[in-house]
């Protein structure tokens, strides 16, 4: 459906804006998670055909008429792996955030600037 594609793009934009403007590391990771959700919505919405049903062969859809009656199964298959990988990458980012907080005790990315030449050890 076109509306779900537009919704996916809006969520992608909101997630991108959140990642660019927020100062807290956890907020940045939440923005990444929202971007992920948006991208998956876009992909699955492209595979949808109007008036058709889920791609499972059972008593309602026989193998012979499947080509006329089912939705595209390929985007679903792609998004399945993408969702699980999104969770794993989010967990990895969070463990980085935990370790960063251990070194300097702050969750604001402003406190993690690289030292400039003036501030560095002489």
């Amino acid at each position: 459906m076109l509306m779900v594609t537009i919704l996916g793009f809006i969520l992608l934009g909101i997630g991108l804006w959140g990642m660019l403007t927020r100062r807290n590391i956890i907020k940045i990771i939440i923005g990444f998670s929202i971007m992920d959700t948006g991208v998956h919505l876009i992909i699955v919405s492209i595979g949808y055909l109007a008036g058709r049903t889920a791609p499972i062969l059972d008593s309602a859809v026989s193998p012979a008429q499947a080509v006329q009656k089912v939705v595209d199964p390929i985007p679903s298959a792609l998004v399945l792996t993408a969702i699980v990988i999104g969770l794993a990458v989010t967990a990895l980012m969070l463990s980085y955030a935990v370790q960063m907080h251990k070194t300097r005790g702050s969750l604001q990315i402003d406190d993690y600037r690289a030292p400039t030449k003036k501030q560095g050890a002489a």
Partner: protein
Amino acid sequence: MIKRLFIFAAIILFGLMVLPLVTRIAPFTELTPLAAKYVGAEAHELGAANLVTAVVVTYRGLDTLGEVTVLFAATAGVGFLLRSRTKKDSSIADAETQAVEAGVQAADPESAVPVEVEVEADRRGSGASGAAATRRPAPLSELLSSASVVLFPLVLMFGAYIFIHGHLTPGGGFQGGVVIASGFALLMAADASRTLNHGVLLLVESLSGAAYVVLGLLGLVLAAGFLDTTFLPFGKLGQVFSAGAIPVIYSFVGLKVGSELTNILESLRK
């Protein structure tokens, strides 16, 4: 100010980038030729009732192998980043933490102060045994801890059902693995001091991953190519023992995903 301008420009350019996609997209009326080929030929070639499972395991089997690898790398990364330091380091860190944040009520289960732990237990108001609360913190909620004993095997069984029947009903290895990991999350939430055996989890994960590759190689030897699932008999469409090696492969994928996600949760918890 300049930074805000740049961010604004980035968002506007992003909107312009997706605008042609949105205005020119027309909803499809027919399946794309690739999808039509997969859907039309699938009942003959593979015999699975769930088309998405057939695409994930066989037609796009190499993508699933890549996904399993990426999950393994992410789990290894999380485990490495959050590995527990030596006992000496952790006790020094605890003393520093308690000295620094004097006002914050951080409940540190490892601290050897029984009075503090008992105050915590009383404040939470749980009716659990007071004798056990001197060494370990009391269970957080009696409802949760007694319900999790009943619910945990049911959730595991449900997860196993999902990945065993992945080729018949909506579901499959990933969903079953995630449900199994949720069951372990329930167990962890019910009792904060319970630790899972890392060795068993790692063993299950590695053996499942190896079994997945071995089944792919069996397909190379006995059938047409790597990860071809037709070397086991097809059976009748819609039965549990059908679709060749698809349920076997997906069961191993389910076990691997479940143990990996549980490993991630366990590494993050402590």
